[in-house]
């Protein structure tokens, strides 16, 4: 990929730092604002620090394009777009609050879900989440009854913190025949305990 020269890059960094802080950074899911405001302390927001790596940095770089600064003979290396290992390795998600969600209903562009607060044991909330905020590989998992986990916190990449949220669907294997039978028997047993007459009528 073509990268900017050092001076262009530095100018862009300079320009970026002058911009007012946004409540959400690039790559952050566009959760409903009222939902985020409720759960995020705006004082926690840390501004992104753009960094220029020198050749002496021990960062695990490949494909870092060597660029000469137009004003000096000093060699500078721009932060690479690609890390040697999977990008996941360098990303750490520090969760401040977590929810377990269940998909209630789906439509063509979004789905309605009910969220259970796992951190503060608050009341359940319903939110509408658009499909385009879900990772492509999880789209096929969105169906009524599907469970997912939502967390808000900080995404830490290369020692830089961004406010972020994370959604990941549970991938659990379908129920086996044994489990279905077990569940049916347990259900029947509970029904008998609650309403003996009703269950005997239904038996068979």
């Amino acid at each position, binding site marked *: 990929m073509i990268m900017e020269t050092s001076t262009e890059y530095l100018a862009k960094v300079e320009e970026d730092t002058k911009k007012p802080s946004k409540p959400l950074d690039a790559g952050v899911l566009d959760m409903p604002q009222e939902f985020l405001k409720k759960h995020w302390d705006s004082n926690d927001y840390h501004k992104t620090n753009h960094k220029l790596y020198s050749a002496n940095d021990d960062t695990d770089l490949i494909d870092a394009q060597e660029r000469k600064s137009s004003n000096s003979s000093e060699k500078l290396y721009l932060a690479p777009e690609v890390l040697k290992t999977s990008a996941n390795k360098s990303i750490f998600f520090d969760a401040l609050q977590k929810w377990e969600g269940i998909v209630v209903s789906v439509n063509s562009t979004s789905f309605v879900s009910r969220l259970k607060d796992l951190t503060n044991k608050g009341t359940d909330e319903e939110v509408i989440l658009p499909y385009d905020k879900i990772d492509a590989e999880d789209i096929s998992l969105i169906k009524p009854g599907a469970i997912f986990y939502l967390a808000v916190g900080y995404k830490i990449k290369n020692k830089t913190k961004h406010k972020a949220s994370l959604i*990941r669907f549970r991938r659990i294997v379908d129920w086996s025949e044994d489990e279905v039978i077990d569940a049916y028997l347990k259900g029947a047993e509970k029904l008998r305990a609650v309403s003996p007459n009703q269950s005997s009528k239904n038996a068979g």
Partner: protein
Amino acid sequence: MNKKLIKEHLLSIVLVGDFNPKIFQPEWFYKIGLIREDEASNPIDLISHAEIMSFNLGWIKVEINRQKFTVYTEQSAYFDLARDFTIGTFKILKHTPIKMLGINNHIHVGIYDKQSWNSFADKVAPDSLLKKGLPKGELEQLTIKEERSNPKGYTRLTVQPSLTHFPGAYFDINNHFEIDQNSKELGCKEIISILENNWKETEDKTLNILSNIWDNK
């Protein structure tokens, strides 16, 4: 307890039994639907050998040898997913003989100043008890174990000064479960159901232990 004081929190789920490490390939986990395709095709630090299988998916690290199946994560957003991954694996491999389970939390708490550390250390190992015999003694390690009968096992708490966050405290909370020696269970259904049914309670207990020690210092 203010969660911002927690500097590191590593969760590990450990199953003890008889495993064949070679079968636990990332590709296999993808085929049974437990991980994404891109994760299976690009695992980090993959070690594949008859005696050990180990790989890192970014959100969890998985390590299997002949006696142990271990899933680690140090990102609390993925704790529940690590549990689901473990349960999903052994719902497929339901005949794997597994006898023990550990839900372990390794937590570093930052204290920031020596005075707070002294006050904390004095609380867990009071000077009044130690000073007479060991006047210059300092807290190195304290272990407390609580046995449990249903499900069988114990919770063991170890407190030490943190080696990575100084001054700070390190808490190792080991929740151990095992199936009854007389159980006729041949596979892993019983131990996996212990994991499913005791997860929330164990998580709450871990946080309670931490809060009770910390908030009463």
